[in-house]
């Protein structure tokens, strides 16, 4: 539900930018009271009543409709009319926001204060009880007007459409590649060497006898030979660590299908044979 905006004078929706509600208006004026000679379907009345944005909006409408001046705010008449509308809303079982009843209370309070005779010793500076309500009504009217003007501003999708063109086929996103300086490159090299050095310092044996290296060496040893006795791959001088690395290298080579292990019969010597087909 989007009720039309009223015009700048606070009269409910005449010919705003948005669509007026046809049944609810006559000569640009909302038909709230049931005129004697015109039947308004209850639905339309509901729509009209629902179109108020709150108690301030309703009050403003009543004031403007009666051509009252906000500044003099005839509280007695306005309160009576306001209550009539609120009762109508209750009668139609409209979901009445608590704000409407709060406003009714405020109006009643202002009314009673105005009716009370002023005591002679009363503070001369005592504020007019209507002042706060008048200020609020003025402020609300201003924002209502601003909203109306904002709605009338030309805007995208409704009044304006962004104009665009396609790029020709050869337009392609450019990726700016990171820059690298020679200094960075040298430092990186230095870093990696330092790290490798530190690594070797702590694990010097492991590194010297690295599996990969041993794999290459084993392949080198068996190259061009038919069968190499398994034991020949090991050298005692390297000690336990060396034996382990060689063994791991052999397993790795088998796994990568670079060599075959051959045993003629159980408990016979194991021989190592290069998988020639795999080479080159």
């Amino acid at each position: 539900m989007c009720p039309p905006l009223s015009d700048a004078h606070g009269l409910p929706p005449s010919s705003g930018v948005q669509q007026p509600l046809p049944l609810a208006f006559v000569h640009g004026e909302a038909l709230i009271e049931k005129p004697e000679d015109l039947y308004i379907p209850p639905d339309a009345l509901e729509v009209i009543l629902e179109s108020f944005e709150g108690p301030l909006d309703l009050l403003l409408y009543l004031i403007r409709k009666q051509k009252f001046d906000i500044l003099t705010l005839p509280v007695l008449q306005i309160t009576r009319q306001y209550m009539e509308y609120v009762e109508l809303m209750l009668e139609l079982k409209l979901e009445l926001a608590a704000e409407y009843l709060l406003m009714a209370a405020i109006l009643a309070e202002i009314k009673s204060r105005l009716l009370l005779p002023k005591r002679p010793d009363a503070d001369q500076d005592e504020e007019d009880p209507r002042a706060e309500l008048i200020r609020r009504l003025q402020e609300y009217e201003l924002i209502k007007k601003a909203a109306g003007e904002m709605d009338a501003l030309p805007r995208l999708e409704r009044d304006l459409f962004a104009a665009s063109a396609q790029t020709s086929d050869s337009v392609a996103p450019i990726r700016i590649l990171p820059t690298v300086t020679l200094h960075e490159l040298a430092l990186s090299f230095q870093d990696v060497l330092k790290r490798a050095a530190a690594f070797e310092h702590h694990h010097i044996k492991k590194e010297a006898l690295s599996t990969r290296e041993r794999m290459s060496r084993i392949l080198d040893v068996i190259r061009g030979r038919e069968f190499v006795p398994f034991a020949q791959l090991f050298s005692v001088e390297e000690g336990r660590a060396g034996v382990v690395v060689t063994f791991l290298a052999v397993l790795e080579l088998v796994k990568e299908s670079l060599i075959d292990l051959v045993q003629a019969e159980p408990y016979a010597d194991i021989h190592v044979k290069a998988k020639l087909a795999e080479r080159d």
Partner: protein
Amino acid sequence: MAKISDAQLKQLVEAAIFVAEGPLSEEKLQETVLLDLGVSGKRLSAILKELELDYRARGIQLVKVASGYRFQSMDSLAPWLSKLWQEQAPRYSRAMLETLALIAYRQPITRGEIEDVRGVSVSSHIIKTLSERGWIKTVGHKEVPGRPALYATTKAFLDYFSLSSLEELPDMQEFIAPEQDKLLQQDNELH
């Protein structure tokens, strides 16, 4: 391309504004298509002015909105152009427009302050819709109990309404209380 002729510059700037996804500011033009071409700000402004004149009599116009330059259709053509789309342009309820107007004119503002002026509560749905459209954003929190969010409008809001700054909103002066005026000015200086 160390040097670029005026004719080439105009073609380049024109094409860039047309193919870019959103409005293009002069800064953005300098950082992208004009990069390394050494086009002075003065020369660029002159070219933009020329383009604006070139299109004045055409069906689309070069306009400057908050986030930069864009081409847009003449608003008098809207009734015919809108037939290109099946759906109608979205309409906004009075509640939404009044909330938006309050945020635009009184920013930064809290939800409570909006409710005080409107005399009714502001639904979360409205705040959510305005945020999702990218028209409003939270710019801070008010140092009062509950630290409510302070809302302000965005450049996208100005772009949507084809405005280049908040000052172009109708009747700005009436709405601005002195201290807010100062804030607004500060805000503009930041942009």
